[in-house]
Structure formats: structure tokens, C-alpha cells
């Protein structure tokens, strides 16, 4: 007994350890479970289904709205359309208006966030394209595939355009389909790439049959079929064409768009918002009487608005601002006008609409020398605002002034004016509110791009 005991103990201990560790027991095994909270990228790439692809498409539309308020803030503040006051962040009124020695920083939210969110939508679209490319043939007909591809490429082009609008001649990256991104290209090359993408997408949309395999919101009402979406594609392409100074092409492109001098000016494509669970409300809506944290109209909007001989305002677009009970002043700026383009927290924000297309057509016609066609379109805009027909000189110079004036008031708060005065080289015409303020031409490329 004495002698056998240690041996037996050693045997028993070894046996236990062996049983535990080596018998193939899975007590020590762990299963590599997927993320329990969110669908994984791996899953959609390896196991695509029509429903998952439709989810991606909806995600693309939803994601286009994220931080769109910052894009609009940037364009509207530098374009001296509005002031964004913030009690907790002085950079809106310092950096964006170039106060004193302030500069636009390459690592501050006003450029990093909208830039990243646009590329995030691009990534979502690229994932959709990759999935379709891998497995589309087994899941969809050729026409259905073409619908996905035309949608994805159009949105990619539009998102790239918004970033190019901010960084302008600093450029953007256009090749971002893989994790290793391509080089930054200049503004002209970027616009050319966007134009080509839109054309390719237009081709796919024409081959996409009668319906998409995914839903679009009421913001795309009337444009949620391949044919309707193609008209939207051409509208954006026309915008790009005038940015490029390619006016004849713009007129051609508009023919396939939804431009219509008989249709409501508001007809178009919108970002829509709601208070439904998971949805967002209009991030650029501020109660116009709010203090501290608010959006105020630039006083020049009211100062320059059309008036009659008695000084009474005759332009009905005066309703885009509202007089404040108390003027708001901060950081050497003040305004007694609340910004009131978006009147509730669920008001939609236009992507593009008939009014912009009419103004593009007018602009192209001015440059092509078709002054009376241009005046016709300008008059549609003017009459809608309660103004009489244009009675000024019908010269290119005068008509350009009038066209820019109508763009300023018609597209107020929709993200155009800074870009418009920039492409006509008129940044120096924008009013400066404080000594030492600067009108910026372009944003720096975000620091995260490691340039």
C-alpha cells in the first residue's frame, strides 16, 4: 500500500490531465461566432442574397444624408448665405469665415466629417458592385444587375462631386474601390472622371428594365425606376458639364433629364427625413428663433433682395428667412434673420430639382448665345418668385449676372452659391463682415489621407 500509493497518484493525476487536455474534449473549444449586433462584411461577400443587396442600396440612400448639414454649412457660410452660431464651438464663425489669422484646418470636423461620410457611401456602393460582380449572375438577371450597377455608379459619382466641390483644386481620390486607394487627382480630372462614371451608369440604367430590385424612398418619387433614375443621372451630369464649362454638352444632357418649364420648380430628388425609429431628422433644421446654437441668414440676403421703388420687398423668396424677435450677435457677427429654408425638422433637402435644371439650361444658353431661350427660363424662375419678366440688357454679361442672381435666391440654402461665385471667379464680390475676414477658395484635403 505504501509503495504503490505515489505511483497510483501519479498515474491518476496524469490520467486526469490527459483526459482533460488531450481526449478531444471540446470543453476547451470556442466557436468563432459572428458579430451578434450587426451584419458582417464577410457575410454579404460570401453569402449574398437579393435582400442583403437591397439593404445595401437603402443604406446608400440613407448614408447620403449623414453630415450633409456640414456640407451645407461649409458652402453656405463661405458663400455668405448664413451664419452657423454655436455656443460650444467657435470654429464655425472663426475658421469658416477666415476670421483674423484663422485658417481652414485639415483635421477639423467641418472637412473631415463630410469628406469621410461621402466616401463611406462610396464604399457601400463599391461593396454592392463587388458583390454583384462576384455573384450577381446567379442571383439576378442581366437587367436587374444593370439596375444595381447604374444606381451604385450614379451615387458614387454624385458623392465624389460633393467632395470635389469642397476641396476644389486640391483634388480628391477617384480610385477607391480597394482598401489601397489610388492617388489624389486634380479638380479637372476629378470632374472628367465623374462625368465618365455618370455616362457609364446612364448606359447601365438604360439596360435595367422597368424596375429596380430595391426600394427608394419618397425622396426619389417619380425617379425610382431605371428610367426615372436615368433622368436624375442626366441632371447631375448636366451640372457637372456646366462646372466643366461644357455648355453644349450640358444642353444635350438636359434633354434626357427631367427639366420642364411647365412642371413645378420643386419637382426633383430629395433627401427625406422622419422621426421614425432608426431614421434621422433634418440635421440642418434649427428653430429660427433659437439662441446660442442656431442658423441665421446672412443679412445680405435681405439687404440685396429685390424691392420695389418704395423699398417694399417684392421677391416671395423672402419667405426663406424669418425676422427674429431678438437679433443674435456673437463673435463680431450679428443677424436679425432666422434661416428658414427648412421649416420643420422633417423638411426634405433637395439633391437637385427642376429650378436648378432650368437655371443650368439658361446658363448654357447664355454661353451658347441663345439669349432669348435663356431669358425664357429665367422668367419662369422670376415669375414663380412673384417678379416681373426680365427687362434688362440681353448681353452675355448682363444675363450671367441675372442668372447668378436667380441662382442665389432660388437655390438659397441648397448648397450652391459659393461654388457658383467661385466658378465665375467672383469670390471677391462676397461681403466681408469683419476686418480681417477671408473668403476661402477651397478646403484642405483631410489629414487622414496622409498626403
Amino acid at each position, binding site marked *: 500500500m505504501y509503495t504503490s500509493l505515489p505511483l497510483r497518484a501519479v498515474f491518476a493525476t496524469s490520467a486526469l490531465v490527459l483526459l482533460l487536455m488531450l481526449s478531444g474534449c471540446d470543453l*476547451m473549444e470556442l466557436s468563432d461566432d459572428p458579430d451578434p449586433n450587426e451584419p458582417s462584411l464577410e457575410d454579404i461577400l460570401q453569402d449574398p442574397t437579393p435582400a442583403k443587396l437591397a439593404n445595401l442600396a437603402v443604406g446608400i440612400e440613407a448614408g447620403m444624408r449623414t453630415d450633409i448639414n456640414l456640407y451645407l454649412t461649409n458652402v453656405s457660410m463661405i458663400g455668405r448665405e448664413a451664419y452657423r452660431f454655436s455656443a460650444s464651438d467657435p470654429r464655425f464663425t472663426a475658421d469658416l469665415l477666415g476670421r483674423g489669422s484663422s485658417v481652414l484646418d485639415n483635421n477639423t470636423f467641418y472637412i*473631415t466629417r463630410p469628406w469621410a461620410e461621402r466616401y463611406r457611401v462610396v464604399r457601400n456602393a463599391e461593396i454592392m458592385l463587388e458583390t454583384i460582380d462576384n455573384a450577381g449572375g446567379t442571383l439576378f438577371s442581366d437587367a436587374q444587375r444593370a439596375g444595381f450597377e447604374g444606381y451604385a455608379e450614379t451615387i458614387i459619382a454624385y458623392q465624389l462631386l460633393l467632395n470635389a466641390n469642397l476641396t476644389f483644386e486640391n483634388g480628391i481620390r477617384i480610385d477607391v474601390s480597394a482598401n489601397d486607394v489610388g492617388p489624389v487627382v486634380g479638380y479637372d480630372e476629378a470632374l472628367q472622371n465623374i462625368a465618365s462614371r455618370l455616362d457609364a451608369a446612364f448606359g447601365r440604367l438604360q439596360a435595367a428594365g422597368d424596375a429596380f430590385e430595391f426600394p427608394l424612398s419618397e425622396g426619389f418619387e417619380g425617379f425610382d425606376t431605371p428610367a426615372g433614375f436615368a433622368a436624375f443621372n442626366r441632371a447631375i451630369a448636366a451640372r457637372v458639364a456646366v462646372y466643366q464649362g461644357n455648355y453644349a454638352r450640358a444642353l444635350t444632357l438636359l434633354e434626357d433629364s427631367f427639366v420642364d418649364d411647365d412642371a413645378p420648380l420643386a419637382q426633383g430628388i430629395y433627401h427625406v427625413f422622419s422621426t421614425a425609429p432608426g431614421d434621422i431628422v433634418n440635421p440642418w433644421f434649427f428653430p429660427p428663433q433659437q439662441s446660442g446654437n442656431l442658423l441665421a441668414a446672412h443679412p445680405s440676403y435681405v439687404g440685396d433682395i429685390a424691392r420695389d421703388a418704395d423699398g417694399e420687398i417684392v421677391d416671395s423668396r423672402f419667405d426663406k428667412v424669418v425676422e427674429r424677435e431678438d437679433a443674435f450677435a456673437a463673435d463680431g457677427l450679428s443677424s436679425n434673420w432666422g434661416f428658414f429654408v427648412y421649416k420643420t425638422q422633417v423638411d426634405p433637402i433637395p439633391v437637385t430639382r427642376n429650378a436648378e435644371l432650368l437655371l443650368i439650361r439658361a446658363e448654357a444658353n447664355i454661353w451658347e448665345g441663345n439669349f432669348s431661350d435663356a431669358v425664357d427660363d429665367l422668367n419662369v424662375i422670376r415669375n414663380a418668385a412673384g417678379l416681373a419678366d426680365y427687362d434688362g440688357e440681353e448681353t452675355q454679361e448682363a444675363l450671367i449676372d441675372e442668372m447668378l442672381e436667380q441662382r442665389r435666391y432660388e437655390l438659397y440654402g441648397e448648397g450652391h452659391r459659393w461654388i457658383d461665385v467661385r466658378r465665375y471667379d467672383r469670390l471677391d464680390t462676397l461681403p466681408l463682415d469683419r476686418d480681417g475676414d477671408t473668403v476661402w477658395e477651397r478646403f484642405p484635403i483631410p489629414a487622414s489621407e496622409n498626403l
Partner: protein
Amino acid sequence: MKHRHHACWTLIWLGVLLFVGMPLTGWAQTTVEGTVTDAEDGSPLPGVNVTVQNTQIGTLTDPDGTFTINVPADRNTLVFSFVGFQRTTVTLEEGQTSVEVSLEPDVVGLDEVVVTGLASSIARENLANSVETISSDDLAGRTNSQTLDGALSGKVAGAEISSYSGAPGGGMSVKLRGVSTINGNSQPLYIIDGVVVNNSAIPSNVNAVTQAAAGGSRSNQDNPVNRIADLNPQDIESIEILKGPSAAAIYGGRAANGVVIINTKSGASDATRVDFSQTLGATTIRKKLGTRQFTAETAEAAFGSEGRTLFLEAQNEGRFIDYEDELFGNTGLLSTTSLSISGGNEDTRFFLSGLLQNDDGIVERTGYDKRSVRLNLDHDLSDRIQLSGTVNYVNANTRRGLTGNDNSGTTFGVALTATPNFIDIRPDEDGNYPDHPFNASNPLQTRDLFTNQEVVNRTITSAQVEYTAFNTEQQSLRIIGQAGADFFSLESEALFPETLQFERTSPEPGTSILGETTSINTNVRLLGVHSYTLSDSDVTFTTQAGVTGVRIDQMTSNFVARGLIPGQQNLDQATSLSPSQVREVQNDRSFFAQEEVNIANQVIATVGVRGDRSTLNGDVDRFYLYPKASAALNIHNFAFWSADAVNQFKLRAAFGQTGNIAGFGTKFTSFEAVSVGGVAGTLINPQRGSADVEPERQTEIEAGIDLGLWDNRANLALTVYRKEITDQLLQREVPASTGFRLETFNGGTLLNRGVEATLALVPVERDRFSWNSRTSFWANDAEVTSLPVPAFRALGGGFGATLGEIRIEEGQSPTQIVGIDDRNGDGTSDGVFQLGDVAPDFQMSFTNDFTFYENLTLSVLAHWKKGGDNLNLSELLFDLSQTSPDFDEDSNNSGVPDGAERVGNVGVSAAQFVQDASYFRIREIGLFYDLPTGLLDRTFNGSLRSVRIGASARNWFTITPYKSYDPEVNNFGTQPVSNGVEVTPFPQSKELFFHLRVGL
């Protein structure tokens, strides 16, 4: 899968059965009987451990202090050990069969037993690490503490334990031996009776109203409580703190921040004891800041023409209101009632306790209520099998008010900064609150009408079986099976009725924020401990090996409902609802093995290894190995040692590694759920997953000397350590044009070096007066030695360089504060410079216990933190609203008021926000009187065992140069690196208590 598990367990039990039938004893022997008594009063001591030296033979004394032990023929030395008494050895004369032993109290804790493996313990004398042990008396005997972690403050050398909020219910950050991670989990692993407990801090999402994270920092600023606060400090028998990897390596991948091992009380084989205690106290604000006294001119300058009008109105009526007092001036009543019953017989012992705690805060309608019950049971099924089980239920209700940073003017603190003393925002007789003329909210209205409370229901249970497979003269084998569960549900409810000033002007007035969290941690362990004593020498080998499994499953749902129907709070009464839900599941499997050799208590050496795999790692199948090794050299036990005055002289050194597993979800690239037009969609998550993420690794070497002088009247322990963290979980930005923003990778190195020293003295030990003293000193120096990413702001490290931030930068202290500064005096910023450091230069604590005539004790714990800066942004907010109390002073005689000067400096220099947060604080002071036993016997006929009355105070006295409420503060709660960022916090309080304790 299930079937296979079943087969596995069958195999294991078969293995266990192999041991059954082995003898417990079986050798030539004599039987020795005896009694063990307390040397101080001669009373019998039950539960004393009696062993035969250099064998595995042992027993415990009975309730009457008696024992019987079989001593082998060739052995003659018995060892007696018991917690709180000095270890005593008795050599038996030839043929001696009975022995009487009296044990001397162990005032310096040298002979206590310390847990070093997962299932083995070692006498402190033989320990090769610096392990802090805190007894129940030290923890909760001196004064009351609302929470367990709060009770540790100032008691652990090498720890930085800091309260981040004065709000009821606690909120503590515990950092052991410096900064141990930059982005990983930063709090110690808490183990209670073998159960790994959840210490997460779950935010309530009041951010939906405060918008605190909308500005310069996106980190959470909801002021959450870390859940270790739920435990009742009075249930605790002892706490052991394994501070660094060299001691904690056996806990492997979860021990990077140290391990806090908590043992709760158990019953003794004795007559049933009933202990009742009632504490009543009061809490008040520790320091008031005051407010600016305006004139009509300054009121106009600060608040415009309306300011002048309101000021003149107030002046006419002689009505100036101290709003700091209105908000923070409440005297909160504190009441703690506890009852414990313990006892048992030879086979079964129990401890039953109950607690009722009702604490109010220094802000009206804030408070903390806790109810807790515990039952601990131990039962000896046979000589071979011991069972024990614990169950603890806690119900806690925390009302923390609304404080800290905001971007909406809604918190009490931010609103106070905009509230001059000449306005009147008090409610009228009908309870109507005037609108605040200069702020989005009326803080008195918010305080009185809103609700922000958390309710926790928590159960922690554990069960253990210890089976002695055999126990011979030379060998013993114990097998221990242990399982435990920690379950809680947390409901947080924040209700902002539509009548509040800021809700009325919102597009959807009336907000309800509802959070629901359920968490369950389960763990199992199976261990074997084999001890083997060589028959011819004093050499003992202790081998232990085992496996453990831990599963953590926590689910949090949060709902923000806006546009509530007036008077309603349910989610379905709202016009809009934003839900969120996050589930975090972690599953770990580990094995470990450890070998310890003890040569005649002269040389004690240990080597061990732990292997950990986790579902949070990129590779779930890989075991990450964490080795350890240590040696202690008891020079005083060698034969040549002859210096009688030095009764202990130990040299020790230890090495160990631990890990820190990546946060949940780090490895996943996923899509977020979005919705537009009522249809759900998926949008790529900008956090790019790191599919191959690995744990961080810490490597520590520590060395030390322990000296005991004059029969342990003086003890000095000195420890130095070097702790290096490699493969850190760092985040790097990826080009945003990829559609992603951030990804996690392993890299970089962080180094901590430190020293800890403790001197324990018994300067006087007489019948009429005794004095015990313990002084600790500790200091830590940290440096980011390698950082493969650009310098970045630490998590919760402030709001950017303009206001000062804590920045992680290669070659610098990780806790450095940097900010813009004007170095050439031209009135503009010259760039970003180092302005300070959050980490203190050193800390000291002083514990002194005085006993007069055996019945009267005075006990004082003082805590000195030297150095360490805070970022005081409260002052900035007061200055911006021009309400700071010293706004009109002109300390530098520049002719410009200090406040205006400070405001002018914003954007030029952040140096003014960096303020010395040193302090000297009387943390705890207690004065207690035990009624003499004779008096009790006469008066109560022996029905009362003891009566103790006393008074105590916590945080009563503080000296600090810091300008705001208190140097202990952090707007961001518990963070890996950052601390001391102050934005209008819930002010810290001080407490005074009266105690009555009765023993039956």
C-alpha cells in the same frame, strides 16, 4: 455538440473516481491532543490550523479550541496558524501526547496567508511578491463607505484610486501600478469568492439631452457608476490585491490591470453570534466656490441691459440668492443598518447578513439606496469532501442628478455657471418656475421635476466542492471544483417632462430615456493541488494544474423617446423613438500549471504558466501563454543568521506576464443599421475590423526586501518594479477615402517603473495604551517608449489643445497634459507645449491606531498625493459667463480683473486650466468605545456580547491648492489613461457618522 460535452464530463468524473478509495492516513503514529487559546485573554480559539511540520498532515481546532492530530513517529514539530495571530511552532518531547498553546496576536499581518495560485495559498513570510491585503477592519471598521471601491481609497500602496464624481452611488477609478493600457480595459479584475464579477460602467445615455459628446470630445460623459459599487463592504472578510503581472500572471489574459480578490465572511464552528450595527450620518459639500458680487455696471457688461435691470431690481429688494447653496447646499442624511448572524457546528458553518442603506446627496432629490442579503454556507460532507456556497442579492437605487459637461445648458453645473446671484429663478407659491433669462434651463426646475435614476437587481452566487483525494504523510491531493454566476439587471430611467424650460422650446417636448441592461457572467474552474514533502528533508513541492472557463454575456438596450404626451413616460406615449441595442459576448478558456518548491522556509521558488484563448481575439483557437517565476530567500531562516534584533530578512524577486484582451467587436467589420423612408438599410461601419487582433502583453519584474525588527515591532517592505506593456491595442486612422475611419492594431510600448515602501510600527504596546502605525509611500513613472502612430488625444483626455488635453506621445509620460501656450509673451499662441501631468509625483498614506485602556480606539487614515495636475474647465465656464467668485480680483495688479484676463487668454494659452491637484486629506477618522465586558455582564445579564459606540468622519479635512471643488474628479469617468478633467462636476462631499454596534 451537447452530446460530446456530456461524454467529456463522464470522462472527467471517471478520472476523479480513480482517486476514491485511497487512504487518508496509514502510517505509524502517535495521537496528540491539545487546546489553543488567545494569549491576550485566554479564550479558546476555534478554527486554528494545526499541522505537522514538513508533512501534509493537518487539522482544525474545535469550537472549544481543542484538537486531535496523528503525528508520525519520525516527526515532532506542530505548527499552529490562524488569521490575525502569529504563527507558532511547538516541538514535542519524546512521548508527549498533549499540548497547550497560546497564540500571540499578529498586529503587522506578517503571518497571514496569501492566495498565490488559483487554489493554493502561502504564508506572507514566504511570499515572493508584494501583495496588498486589506482586512475587514481596515476596510470598513474605521468609518462608513458607500461603496466597496470607495473604501479602498488611500489604503493600497501602488494604487491610484480616485473618485470621479461626488454623486451618490460612487464612481471610482482604480489603477494599479500606473497606466497599464492606452485603449484597452483599464480596471482590475474583481473576483469575489471565486466568481469573476462584472465591473462595467454602463452609461444611461442622458447624453441625448446634455449633448455632452456632441462637441470637442465624443467620449462618454454620462457619469456612470462602475458596478463593483453594488457590493456591501461589511460582508467582506479580506481583500487581496495582486498589483502587477508578476503576482497576477496566473490570471493571464484578464489580469493586465491587476486582480482584486475578495473573500466574504464565513461562519465559525461556534455559538451563534448576532451582530447589529446602525450608522447615522450627514453629508455636506466639501468646499463651496462662492459666486461673483456684481455691480450694475458689471451686471450689464456680463449680461447686457437685461442684466442691469435685473441687478437693480435685486438690489432694491435686497434679494441676492446663493445658487450654489440652493443647488449643492443640501445636508443629506445617511443611514446604514446592518445585521449579521453567524455560527455553526463542527460540520456546518453559516454567515447570514442583511443591509439597509439609505443615503441622500448634497443635491436635493439625489441619493443612493441599497438593500443586500448574503448567505454563506460551509459544510463538511466527510473528512474528504467540503462544500461551500455563497449567495448574495443586492438591490440598489441610484439617483445621481444631472451634472458634468453639456452642450445644451441643461446640467446643474453648467446652468449654475450662467446663474448670477441677482436673478430669481425660484418657483412661485404655485410651483411655477420662471424661465432662466440667461440659460437654456432653470436648474432648480430641472432638479425638482426631472428624474434620473438607476435600479440594479443583482445576484452573485458561487459553489465549491473540495475533495481530498488522499492525504498521506508525504503527499496530499486536493481536487477543487468551483462554479459561480454574477447576474444583474440594470434599469436606467431619465425623464425630462415637457414642462422643463429646454423641453418646451424643443421640436418634440418631453424626453424619456430608458436603458435596460442584463448581464450574466458565469465561470467554472477545475483544479488539482498536489503537495509532496520529501521524506528526509525539509523540502515541499506543491503542484497545481487546472482549467477554467468564463463566459460574459451583456446586453444593453436604450431608448430615447421624444415628444411625450404630457405627464406620460412610456415609450409608446411618444411621437418619436430612437432605439439602440448592443450585445457583447465573451467566452474564454484557460489552463494553468504551477510548481512551487519550499526548501525549509529558506528558499521558496515558483514557476508557472497560464494559457488563455478568447473569442475576442482574432484567432479564437490560439492559446496565448503567460509565464511567471518567482523566488523568495528567507535569510533569517538560515542557520548562520544570528542577528536577534532582525527577526525577518527576506529578499524576493518575481517575474510575470499578463494580457489585456481587445474590446468586444474589435475584430468585426460590420454594417450599421440605418433607415430612410421607413425602410431599413445597411451602411458600412467606419470602424474597420482587425481580424487578427491579439491581446496586449505586460511583462513585469519586481524585486524587494522585507525586514522585521525587534520581534516584528517594526516591519519594512520595499518593492521596486518595472512593467512594460507591448503589443498595445492602438487605433490608427485609415484614409477616410476608403470609407473607413479607424482600425485597431497591435503595437507600441509603454513602460512603468515604480517603488512601493511600507513601514509598519508598533511604537507603544502597553495595557493602558497601544499605538500601531503604518506608513506607505509609492511612486510610479511612466513613459510611452514607442508609438507607431502620430501623437493623439487619450480617450476622454479633454477637448483639444486650446483647452488643454492629455496626449499620448512617444518619449513622454502617457498622462502628460499639453496645450497651446504663449511662450514669447506676444499675446498669441506659439504652438502646443507640455503644460503638466495628471500622474502624481508620489503618494503617501498614514494609518495610526491608538487604543486607550483597551476599550477606546482612535484610528486615523491620512492620504497625501503630491503633484499631479487637473484640467479645470469649470473655472473657464464660470469665467465665460463672468460669474466666477474671483472675477473682479486683480491678483497681479495689472488693472484688468483676473476673470477678464483669463477669458482673454482663451485661445492664447491653456496653461491657466492646468492646475496643481495635490492634496493632503484626512480620509478616515474613527473614534470608538467598547463598553467593558464586566459592565455588560452586570447590566444586561450577559445577554449582550459586545456594545461599541463611536463617531467617524470620511474626507473631513483636505488641504489642496486646487481651485475648484475637489482635486478628485473626472468628467469622463473611468478612463485607461486620463483623469482629472473637470467640467462642472457633482461636487465632492464630506461625511460625518455616529455608530452603534451591538453583539449578541
